[in-house]
């Protein structure tokens, strides 16, 4: 099991944003988390990636507990994420933003950086090449030298995606990767997720776009008001009466 979430809870004051959630992610799969707005999906991602500490519960990644670890430690162990509201570094080019993703796969420190030692120069060249490769994979190689936050929305999503891939993660968390994209871009993102999954990266994604989720994911977890109300294959979820109720609204059901 690559990721195991056990009895996970997170409260914000009186609000139970994530409530006793259990699920696991097998290596190699694409797993989706769906649910209405405010269901606790982003909070769940924040807990898994270490951005928030859980109120209680356990998270194991590659068999080791990661709850309570700071995000950078979890990243070092091979988990990468993107954000629902894109978080790129302003004042840095698209290429530099992707190069940040190589941080955990390189090692020049303060001293070697200050002395500009030959091996750090070689490392920098390797970081740059790998990052350019990823920009090319995402079809934005021509934007390498443009300031990342000045790019169009879809392009910013692509940069963030490339940055996460630069980390060469084993598990990639994608928080609404198609939000704000048009149908062509969404189809492109779906294709991309499948591609990187075939290259061996396990994907856990939150998504609103149902067709995208049903098309590409192997398994789906459904959250509502912080609780897991269903889990199964896309076909099972499509026919789950609870899920249908939530998605169509109780009044119309």
């Amino acid at each position, binding site marked *: 099991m690559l990721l195991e979430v056990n009895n996970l809870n997170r409260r914000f004051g009186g609000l139970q944003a994530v409530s006793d959630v259990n699920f696991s992610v097998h290596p190699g799969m694409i797993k989706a988390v769906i649910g209405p707005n405010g269901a606790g999906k982003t909070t769940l991602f924040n807990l898994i*990636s*270490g*951005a928030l500490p859980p109120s209680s519960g356990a998270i194991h990644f590659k068999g080791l507990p990661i709850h309570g670890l*700071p*995000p*950078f430690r*979890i*990243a*070092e162990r091979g988990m*990468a*994420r993107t*954000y629902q509201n894109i*978080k*790129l*570094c*302003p*004042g*840095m080019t698209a290429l*530099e*933003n992707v*190069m*940040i*993703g*190589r*941080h*955990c796969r*390189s*090692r*020049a*420190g*303060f001293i*070697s*950086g*200050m*002395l*500009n030692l030959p091996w*750090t120069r070689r*490392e*920098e060249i390797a*970081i740059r090449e790998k990052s350019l490769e990823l920009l090319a994979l995402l079809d934005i190689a021509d934007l390498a030298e443009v300031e990342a936050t000045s790019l169009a929305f879809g392009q910013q999503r692509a940069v963030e995606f490339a*940055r996460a891939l630069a*980390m060469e993660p084993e598990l990639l968390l994608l928080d609404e990767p198609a939000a704000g994209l048009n149908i062509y871009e969404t189809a492109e993102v779906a294709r991309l997720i499948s591609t990187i999954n075939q290259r061996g990266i396990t994907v856990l994604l939150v998504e609103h776009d149902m067709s995208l989720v049903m098309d590409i994911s192997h398994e789906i977890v459904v959250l509502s008001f912080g609780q897991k109300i269903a889990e199964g294959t896309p076909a099972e979820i499509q026919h789950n009466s609870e899920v249908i109720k939530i998605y169509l609204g109780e009044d119309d059901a």
Partner: protein
Amino acid sequence: MKRHLPLALLVLTAIGVQQLTHATGTAFYLTPLTMAAYYSLVIVGLCLLMGYAGQISLGHAGFFAIGGYLSAMLTTRDLTPYQDNPVLVLLDKLGCTVTGQDMFGGAVLHVHPWAAFACAILITIAVAYGIGIPVLKLKGHYLAMATLGFGIIVYRLVLASPLFGEADGISEVPAFPLFPGLAVSGGFESRVSNYYLAWGMVACAMWLLANLIHSRVGRALRAIHGAEDATNAMGVNTARYKLNTFVISAVLAAVAGIFLTHYNGGIGPSEAGIMKSVRYVAIVAIGGMANLWGALVMGSLLNIMSLRGMFGSYDDAVFGLILIVIMLFAPRGLLGLSLPQGLKRLLKRGE
């Protein structure tokens, strides 16, 4: 290669200026030029912290003072009364002490400047970590206030402590013999060598810092500045990076304090004052924040003007004013401002 061009320019300018003062018989300019070099050391270190790592410090005069005062105190205090103290005996055996004569010809015992230097730097590092670990958890105004508090504490300590000479500071600080043939001292005959020493140190610092900001670490620092959470999630130990940068800039300030104190032959409480810290921040701001060379150019020019007394008794007021004007009209620094645009902005505000 691009990185080495400004460095070459710096070296050439330093040589050119010295030759010019030599040719025109204005070698007295070398003294403010040398002092300005040491202040520039503080400023480029602060520029790394503020401009690149995005962490403000309103207490850097405190680190300058820790370096300068410790070195001054250790190299001037007569240790003869403690001669039998085992610690002193050990220091003596290690060659960390020097004997001399006081003005009446009596024997006195001091800590060797190199030992004092090592001690001052170690204490600076310890203080910088001690202050930095809790304080760098804060952001924005809170960080500014906390570092300001640190600066005030150092200022009041040196002002209140007889060990540091209270309001008079410490004078008669001896020369610092770096190695045979070169000593940090304000003596007339060593004016040229000290000028080159000071600017050589600035050039070294610029080389190291310019390398750093173009490295993996520099990229991570700039990323922290822009999006700290995301940078942490990318595998950067953001707390450690901010802390290390804080310590590096503190050490640069302390080194400047030590060298300038030996050059001037003394140090006074004004060096630890809040206005000094504000001045350093103002200069980093006018240089363009994330612009090492801008900070160096602005720092040298303004400090030389200030040391030559061009601002008269309004010295501190000038730097306060600079800070306000820069924040209002040119937050990207004077060098990052195109003049017509700046004027347009000015006029628009006037409307």
